[in-house]
């Protein structure tokens, strides 16, 4: 048995990279776990495709109508897809006790929630961007509009993950957590939806989309600054 290696070890104190490394650890960990369970990931992507594909069946095949409705439909589907995959953010770790171990890490809890939100974005957000062009074609959107749609989703999906992490932390361990999470977080998604879908509308109608995208980016920055802290205190409250 080696001696107690890590008594209180002052040399560790000034390791300035440990928060970043810890953040990367949390992200890498969630990506690894998601890779081991590819089924969940696939269901979320297919959910997104199927929800979007239902609308033309409901609205009718005329290209002009679909072009007008397309951006809103894709964006609302992105909201729903992220809300579907958010309860899993903390639920499994909470159930098998590893969430407690993460809260007992010397690194601040904010990094846990930030890391998990970013991991959720990488796992569930980015694949959405790859599928969107196919769906854009389905709604006969011109190439430029599809480009703006993908960019708006690129800026928008982290917002969905960050705000969603607050909802996931608040509803941790509650019965009916998934529906409750949607009820809590959907109103907070409204600005992202308006700016995101509005950008594509702007591109389609030619009045320009840069204003929308910059406002969306501003909302992303605000969310990035607020959401992890709120989610961290929500986690501490839920774990109590």
């Amino acid at each position: 048995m080696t001696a107690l290696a890590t008594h209180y070890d002052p040399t560790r104190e000034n390791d300035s990279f440990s928060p970043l490394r810890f953040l990367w650890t949390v992200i890498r960990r969630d990506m690894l776990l998601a890779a081991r369970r590819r089924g969940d990931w696939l269901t979320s992507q297919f959910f997104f495709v199927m929800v979007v594909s239902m609308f033309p069946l409901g609205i009718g095949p005329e290209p002009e109508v679909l072009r007008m409705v397309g951006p809103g439909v894709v964006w609302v589907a992105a909201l729903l897809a992220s809300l579907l995959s958010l309860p899993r953010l903390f639920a499994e770790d909470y159930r098998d006790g590893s969430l407690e171990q993460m809260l007992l890490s010397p690194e601040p809890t904010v990094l846990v929630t930030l890391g998990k939100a970013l991991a959720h974005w990488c796992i569930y957000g980015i694949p959405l961007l790859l599928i969107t062009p196919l769906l854009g074609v389905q709604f006969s959107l011109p190439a430029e509009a599809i480009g703006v749609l993908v960019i708006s989703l690129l800026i928008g999906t982290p917002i969905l993950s960050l705000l969603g992490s607050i909802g996931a932390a608040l509803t941790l361990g509650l019965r009916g957590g998934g529906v409750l999470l949607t009820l809590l977080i959907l109103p907070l998604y409204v600005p992202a939806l308006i700016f995101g879908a509005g950008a594509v509308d702007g591109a389609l109608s030619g009045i320009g989309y840069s204003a929308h995208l910059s406002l969306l980016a501003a909302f992303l920055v605000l969310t990035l600054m607020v959401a992890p802290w709120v989610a961290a205190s929500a986690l501490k409250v839920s774990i109590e």
Partner: protein
Amino acid sequence: MPETPAKLTVHDLACARGERTLFTGLDFELNVGQLLLVRGGNGRGKTSLLRLLCGLSSPLDGEVRWRGDPIRRTRDVYHREMTYVGHVNGVKDDLTPLENLRMAAAIADRPLDEAHALETLKRMGLERCLDLPARVLSFGQRRRVALSGLVVAGALLWILDEPLTGLDVHGVALVETLLCQHVAQGGMVVMTTHQPLALDGVDIVPLMVGELSAAPGGQ
């Protein structure tokens, strides 16, 4: 930072779950080389006390101090020097025991010596299932993975909630030797258990939880 002596002191601690007050006015001090054995019936607040000591939950009243400072303020120092093994193992089903150890060490921001980790896993009797996902292991084996994480972490203060549950006879013997070695080396342990413990030569501080004011030494 000047190295004040490692000491866990609890001052006038009170804990409630929902409406019920579990205990009040709890005072004790744990020094290096001691093992605090928390006893008490089910639902009397043993687990709640341990979670209060870890800082996972906040007390109704009173304070927990590590090296003289309240753990709320010296959170990073305290969490670097303690490890908690709760009822739930904290072992991920999709990862192999080695991956679990490596991930736990990374999360706890502790260096992991690969050889030492493998050797610990073998010593904990897990050599046959090193590359199997933890999902297929029995509860006892998963418990051993959690305990090997404890050994690899090498923290000063161990907080263990019923570490012996699910372990067979060899497992229990193994844990007892671990505890003896840890305390002998100047470590500290806070643990709860319902099973009898054969810990020779260990300075055990018994603590009953559940009466209104838990008087230490009421073995």
